[in-house]
């Protein structure tokens, strides 16, 4: 195919669809329980050097428990998709977990400002970066979910975002229109937090799905954390609601309040107080180290972390915020 132009960014994962097929051919399709702890799931499916994706949207429906556990288990040299990655990005930067990054939205926490530590890490030269946009990363997942090696899109062209991407410019064979070719992104492992799952991994999500539908399908291994376990019967009662079917899933970890301190649609709002504290303490590397020790490294799991930050009282307050009984930024 005639390539009109191409970016200089690296492609950190292999877009080859036949190689992905060889992997998926061997993926387990048996209906068997995948219940395990987050600790077990990370030990089993997240390896040094793997390319990682975290679902949700930065501080909304994020697999926070998995991100903390990755730090506790000391994973290094990973690849990471910065696909509106905000608080999750902040966590991974704290552990210097990755050394290559597909950046669409990183280092910021939206209206909350920029993370000093994430900026330090990204300005250190320790991380190799290719640039994309949120939609282009979505399309890269969508192409992988469709089992192909690329999909075309109409964004990005003409900018430095293109120049530092790993994409190429091609022409439509029907209209001659130029397109940005997005290479498929098949992550080695992803973690997604959902509202409900059964022990086999059939999942339901409420509210926005962001790119998780495609991320789940594109990923070679998939760790699910869920607010609530439900029965298989409940899943089969109405199959219209299933977003992620069990054959995509490798681990199911029940983690109530698993998106904390992030927002979980219909469940609890984000803990803005804690997120502000996190941003603030990052300004002082020593204090930040102590903060991480307390909240992540010396906590044995997500529940201990929550306990240290207000426990069930805090959770009830965040639930009141979610339902607008309290203002979001209070």
């Amino acid at each position: 195919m005639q390539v009109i132009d191409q970016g200089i960014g690296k492609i950190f994962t292999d877009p080859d669809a036949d190689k992905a097929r060889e992997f998926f051919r061997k993926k387990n399709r048996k209906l068997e329980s995948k219940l395990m702890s987050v600790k077990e799931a990370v030990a089993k499916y997240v390896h040094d050097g793997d390319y990682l994706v975290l679902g949700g949207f930065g501080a909304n429906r994020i697999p926070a428990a998995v991100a903390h556990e990755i730090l506790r288990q000391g994973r290094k040299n990973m690849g990471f998709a910065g696909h509106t990655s905000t608080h999750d990005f902040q966590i991974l930067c704290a552990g210097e977990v990755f050394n290559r990054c597909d950046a669409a939205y990183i280092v910021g926490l939206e209206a909350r400002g920029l993370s000093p530590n994430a900026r330090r890490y990204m300005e250190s030269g320790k991380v190799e970066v290719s640039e994309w946009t949120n939609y282009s990363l979505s399309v890269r997942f969508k192409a992988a979910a469709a089992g192909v090696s690329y999909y075309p899109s109409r964004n990005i062209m003409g900018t430095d975002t293109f120049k530092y991407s790993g994409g190429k410019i091609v022409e439509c064979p029907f209209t001659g229109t130029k397109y940005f070719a997005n290479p498929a992104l098949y992550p080695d492992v992803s973690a997604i937090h959902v509202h409900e799952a059964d022990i086999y991994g059939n999942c339901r999500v409420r509210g926005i799905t962001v790119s998780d539908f495609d991320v789940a399908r594109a990923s070679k291994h998939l760790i699910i954390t869920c607010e609530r376990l439900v029965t298989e019967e409940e899943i089969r009662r109405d199959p219209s609601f299933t977003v992620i079917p069990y054959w995509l899933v490798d681990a199911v970890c029940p983690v109530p309040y698993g998106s904390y301190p992030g927002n979980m649609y219909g469940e609890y709002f984000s803990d803005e107080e804690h997120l502000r504290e996190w941003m603030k303490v990052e300004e002082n590397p020593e204090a930040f180290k102590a903060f991480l020790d307390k909240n992540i490294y010396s906590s044995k799991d997500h529940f201990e972390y929550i306990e240290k930050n207000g426990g069930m009282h805090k959770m009830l307050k965040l639930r009141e915020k979610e339902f607008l009984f309290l203002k979001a930024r209070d």
Partner: protein
Amino acid sequence: MADYNTMELMICSAARELEDGSSVGVGTGAPCAAAMLAQKAHSPSLVIFFEAGGAAPLIPEMPISVGDSRTTYKAVMASGMCEVMETACRGMLDYTFLGGAQIDMYGNLNSTRIGPDHQKPKVRFPGSGGANDFASFCWRMMVMTPQDSKRFTEKCQYITTPGWLTGGDSRAKSGLPLGAGPYKIITNMAVMDFEEESKRMRLIAVNPGYSEKDVQNNCGFELLKAKKIVENKPPTKHELTILREEIDPYRYVIGR
């Protein structure tokens, strides 16, 4: 008459651009406030989209994130990023509001980095997020930004998000969808549009209390000037009441 601040004026100016029955892709902060104001003041049918998937919500209070629960409150649909961006790419989104650390005379935006070394930048910003996408797809891209000559720069150190690129027909040639591009730039001092042929930024309205010279002095490149430069209308009482009492009672956006 002068009982408003420039942020309030900017939000009101922006809101007035959003006519009833149009659609807009917004982020958090001032753009969201402008869309909310438009909806409550004069465009009840304005369709508001958030890139994370929220579509046509009845926003109860300012969101903190474009993916938080406020963005799908009583929404018509909670979807995903592809759904929103592809709706825009099909030509269904009329407007978007963006910002950036730098903007040039063609409306190109930098929100990625300062410093020449991409792998070791002097300052790293978030990058595109959905900005490049909205700017590529939405018919009319607008910017709300404070005006100073560092921000309004001759040449962005990095073009994150496309404006009219290098002007003229360069954007049409790039492959980006035809007919879409930067429309208005709304600052604390003025409103600019883009001259039709050259696609260079052009002053069209000055805010009360500022002169044309103030605007040019706070711009790092030469601004074209419209034949007739008007004075921008101040916020009405009605607009201010809605903005202060319903939209941003805690003055997160308008107070700062």
